[in-house]
């Protein structure tokens, strides 16, 4: 009778049940059994309950984090189990960021640009639906980003075929060392902000979360974020535009 296939012997080493024919062969064939035995050592050593996927959470005592923080020098702290909500919009006495004036810019309506954008995102999903938030009913909501002379660009809201939206950001700005650009949408009071992702000089897309109401967050903002681990806006914006302007 034919020997078991190498794949079947591997499954037998994992103690899976083989089809009846192969099982019978294995019981009577010394060479197949020897192969299973040789393959079995690794699963026997590793497939032990102590190393299995975790089941029960056991919160460690506080000194464990203290030891980790001491060993890594990390100063950020995990939340305790009564999460502190940051007080909204209390201006700090000493603003940590550069104060930049906000200017509204007219939205350029460029249907040719829209066509280019549609082509550019085909790889991410064919554009079959369009957004028509603008009073002109143009296929893509486009906004010029401008704030500081060092940086400029455009941001385009593109609706993909599956209804999801992306923001295509074309950023013309100097490359950064020890910092990065992040794109945000911000509400009109410049209080509520949603980070959308890291961007670099050039063209890229970031996802727009489902359910995000862009009329609530009409300001597109590009900030310079230091590598400090602080997820909040640095306060230093280099480019900004108003989707409703």
């Amino acid at each position, binding site marked *: 009778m034919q020997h078991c296939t190498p*794949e079947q012997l591997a499954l037998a080493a994992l103690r899976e049940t083989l089809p009846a024919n192969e099982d019978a062969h294995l019981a009577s064939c010394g060479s197949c059994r020897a192969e299973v035995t040789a393959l079995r050592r690794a699963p026997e050593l590793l497939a032990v309950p102590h190393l299995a996927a975790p*089941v029960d959470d*056991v919160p460690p005592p506080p000194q464990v984090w203290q030891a980790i923080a001491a060993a890594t020098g990390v100063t950020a702290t995990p939340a305790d189990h009564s999460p502190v909500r940051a007080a909204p919009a209390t201006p700090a006495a000493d603003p940590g960021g550069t104060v930049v004036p906000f200017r509204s810019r007219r939205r350029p309506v460029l249907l040719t640009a829209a066509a280019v954008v549609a082509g550019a995102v085909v790889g991410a999903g064919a554009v079959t639906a369009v957004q028509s938030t603008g009073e002109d009913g143009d296929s893509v909501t486009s906004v010029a980003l401008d704030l500081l002379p060092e940086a400029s660009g455009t941001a385009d809201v593109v609706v993909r075929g599956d209804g999801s939206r992306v923001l295509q950001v074309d950023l013309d700005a100097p490359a950064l060392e020890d910092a990065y650009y992040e794109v945000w949408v911000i509400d009109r009071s410049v209080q509520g*902000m*949603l980070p959308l992702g890291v961007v670099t000089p050039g063209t890229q897309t970031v996802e727009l979360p*489902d359910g995000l109401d862009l009329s609530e967050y009409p300001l597109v903002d590009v900030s310079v974020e230091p590598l400090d681990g602080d997820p909040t806006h640095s306060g230093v914006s280099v480019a900004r535009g108003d989707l409703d302007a």
Partner: protein
Amino acid sequence: MSGALALREPIMGSVQAVGHVPGTRSVVDPDDAEIGRRFAAGEEQALAWAYEQWAGQVHGMAVRAFGPGPDAEDVTQQVFVAAWTGRARYRPDDSPLPAWLVGICRHKIADAWAKRDKQRREAEAAMTEAQARPGGPVTAGVDAAATDRVLLLDELDHLGQPQRGIIELAFFEDLTHAQIAERTGLPLGTIKSHIRRTLERLRTRLEVDGAALHA
């Protein structure tokens, strides 16, 4: 990695005045993938988030291996410190951060076992010598398991995806190849041939470097 992003709560603050109070937490709860990306990028806050989310899982594993107490706490600490200092090796697109942490935890547990085993053997050898018992080291070869386990976990680290994910499901979640196919959406034949090749690779590693050989 595609998939719609859930709408998060906005950060409340002002651009002009960025009031980050040390020790307080941002109102934003980043999702797991975001924590993974920021962890890989070296953002310190991501280490704190990872600890918030997964220290219980890691410590739970350590407690299962060593019981509650200093040994389990020590392993938990080692896992997060090793993850942070080794974050350049973490590939967010390859595996979720908790899976990576659990993988490191397996290493730390196996390392601790091997260390205990070595101490025990040294103690036994010393006792044998002191008592001038004939027969040499009594446990040569017998305790290869602890060191072989360390070797095997190391070999798993060298597997690419999807091989690694497949063998982890077989070893650590006790899934059959049919269940793995279902879970991963890969064809049965692919799963079987990956399992075969991975088991052969692990066997070879044991034959080349295995403790039993050198005992």
